[in-house]
């Protein structure tokens, strides 16, 4: 072991080499930008929710139904993240709230620098400068987005019934970095083997502080609990 650095580097050491102590997170630049984003979002008056899930688990549909239910009383804005296309932003825009689309051009996650850009773009949209709740719909991916703080206040992870109940165990990072876990598409429970209680217990094992809800945005079952959570978030923010 090398005396200078404690790392096991001996064979490569030379007389004119220098060991530089860094001890800095690789995510330091992202985290610093995320802190700025959080301040920016708070100046807009908003609380931000970062939505993480696999592709097709119902993030956009959940947002559409949420805007229909709360759009008159709570000012909602949305930043959409996708690899390509602005289809999700078009769906949200049709509901009459400010939205912008970030396309990552291949990257599997949003990062804080993209959100920084997104916030400035959103402010140029009509009604986009003053918000109560900002939803950030991350790229559909249960793995990579979990590593990147975007400046959100709450993180939400979604798993839909057709995906199966084993996602918390298989993708732990998304679950122990989130505050809320939603099991979506519960109207499909009769057709899939998805033991809800087991999935909840497994998620709580990873993160005992998780708030867990199961709902169907289509049938409306369990949706009130979600709306109450958002109303509480909004009320406590004021």
């Amino acid at each position: 072991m090398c005396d200078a650095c404690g790392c096991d580097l001996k064979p490569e050491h030379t007389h004119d080499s220098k060991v530089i102590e860094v001890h800095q997170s690789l995510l330091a630049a992202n985290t610093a930008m995320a802190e700025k984003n959080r301040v920016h979002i708070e100046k807009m008056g908003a609380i931000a929710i970062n939505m993480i899930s696999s592709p097709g688990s119902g993030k956009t549909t959940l947002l559409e139904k949420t805007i229909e239910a709360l759009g008159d009383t709570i000012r909602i804005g949305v930043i959409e993240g996708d690899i390509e296309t602005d289809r999700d932003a078009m769906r949200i825009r049709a509901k009459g709230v400010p939205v912008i689309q970030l396309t990552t051009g291949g990257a599997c996650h949003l990062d804080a620098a993209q959100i920084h850009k997104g916030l400035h773009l959103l402010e140029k949209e009509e009604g986009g400068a003053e918000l109560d709740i900002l939803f950030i719909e991350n790229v559909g991916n249960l793995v990579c987005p979990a590593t990147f703080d975007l400046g959100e206040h709450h993180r939400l992870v979604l798993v839909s019934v057709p995906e199966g109940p084993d996602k918390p165990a298989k993708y732990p990072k998304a679950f122990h970095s989130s505050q809320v876990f939603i099991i979506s598409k519960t109207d499909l429970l009769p057709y899939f083997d998805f033991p809800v209680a087991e999935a909840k217990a497994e998620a709580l094992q990873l993160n005992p502080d998780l708030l867990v809800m199961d709902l169907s945005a289509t049938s409306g079952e369990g949706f009130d609990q979600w709306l109450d959570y958002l109303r509480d978030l909004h009320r406590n923010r004021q």
Partner: protein
Amino acid sequence: MHEMSLVQGLLIQLNELAKEHDRSKVISVCMEIGPLSGVVIDSFQFGFDILAKEDVLTKDAKLIIESPPAIYRCFGCGKEVEAVKRPESCSECSETLFSPQGGDGLILRQVEME
């Protein structure tokens, strides 16, 4: 595969450090990647092997990765155990809920340059 973009960030940081310390070659890089960091060590190493070669500064650099365990605190009795993987149940009270502490580091510790 966010490991690739993390490696790209690391290489940018190495270039900045080399400039700052007036060095032209990275000999070794020592990283801490915790078991709860959400980063796959093999993928990170793979990304480094590919991307480091493209830069004259890092083409011969050796990447050393250390992965210290996380601490799991039992929700029932508060007993703490160090482990790389989440324990099935508490050895004291059989509780199955644990809250993890640490183990999520993704840290550039040291760089050796000449």
